[in-house]
């Protein structure tokens, strides 16, 4: 369990972690279905939605990252994907791209670098700065 720092919030956090992980597993199944139907853009949208809840639990973050990673690697047409993605998802996508770039795994890094360039052209430098400055909601 995540560290006990006392107070009622910790218990809520622990329960929430299990619930969040269940939700992530459901999301993962939905994404697999969407990918089998060759709809990678919807898969990415599903993966990014609901990944913003404030959770400090490393397991939740890792589980979320695995799901988003699967969706990102399935994207072939980057321009088309960014065209149809809502602007509200740009910031969270940028955070996941930086997480992907820190893994050091060659295919992940290649894909993330490609998307990063196009996303910066579309969303601007503010997107990168918000990603750097947000120390509370990290992925």
């Amino acid at each position, binding site marked *: 369990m995540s560290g006990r720092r006392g107070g009622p919030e910790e218990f809520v956090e622990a329960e929430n972690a299990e619930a969040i992980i269940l939700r992530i597993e459901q999301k993962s199944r939905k994404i697999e279905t969407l990918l089998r139907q060759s709809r990678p853009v919807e898969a990415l949208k599903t993966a990014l939605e609901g990944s913003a809840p404030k959770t400090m639990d490393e397991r939740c973050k890792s589980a979320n990252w695995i799901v988003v990673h699967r969706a990102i690697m399935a994207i072939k047409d980057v321009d088309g994907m960014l065209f149809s993605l809502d602007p509200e998802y740009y910031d969270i996508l940028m955070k996941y791209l*930086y997480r992907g*770039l*820190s*893994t*050091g*795994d*060659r295919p992940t*890094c*290649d894909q993330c*670098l*490609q998307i*990063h*360039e196009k996303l*910066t052209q579309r969303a601007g*430098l*503010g997107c*990168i*700065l918000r*990603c*750097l*400055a*947000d*120390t509370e909601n*990290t992925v």
Partner: protein
Amino acid sequence: MANTQRLYLTCIRNTLDAAMCLQNFPCQEVERHNKPEVELKTSPELLLNPVLICRNEAEKCLIETSINSLRISLKVKQADELENILTKKFLRFLSMRAEAFQVLRRKPVQGYDISFLITNYHCEEMQKHKLIDFIVQFMEDIDKEISELKLSVNTRGRLVATEFLKQFI
């Protein structure tokens, strides 16, 4: 291959463009002191998230920003033992002359080959986009330099060996 390098450098350039937002900030703990906060890391509210950009398993770039300073650490690709030695010697040569470069750090950060430290004073004296151009140009040139050095070592070795062994013919 050239394409991944271009993408890698573009990514670093964009990140630096966004991260190089430095302003003067006197030390909070000690009166009349002005220290680069990224080096000390005493106050978490003054630091931004560090960002690690990897091109592959061997090459990576760590960018850490704070309110008044920015630290960039590079790990250069080293394919074999010879390149390892050449890189270490060459970058040590540069680091010892860090005064001349102004933005170079005397010792690289643990786990990396070379580090730059850019403070708000550098941004005031020099132009921001030129600083970024310098860093990116440095990254491009370092690969070429190391290859050239390797080539010249191999050539010289071959010449010396040929001359030496001639006396035994």
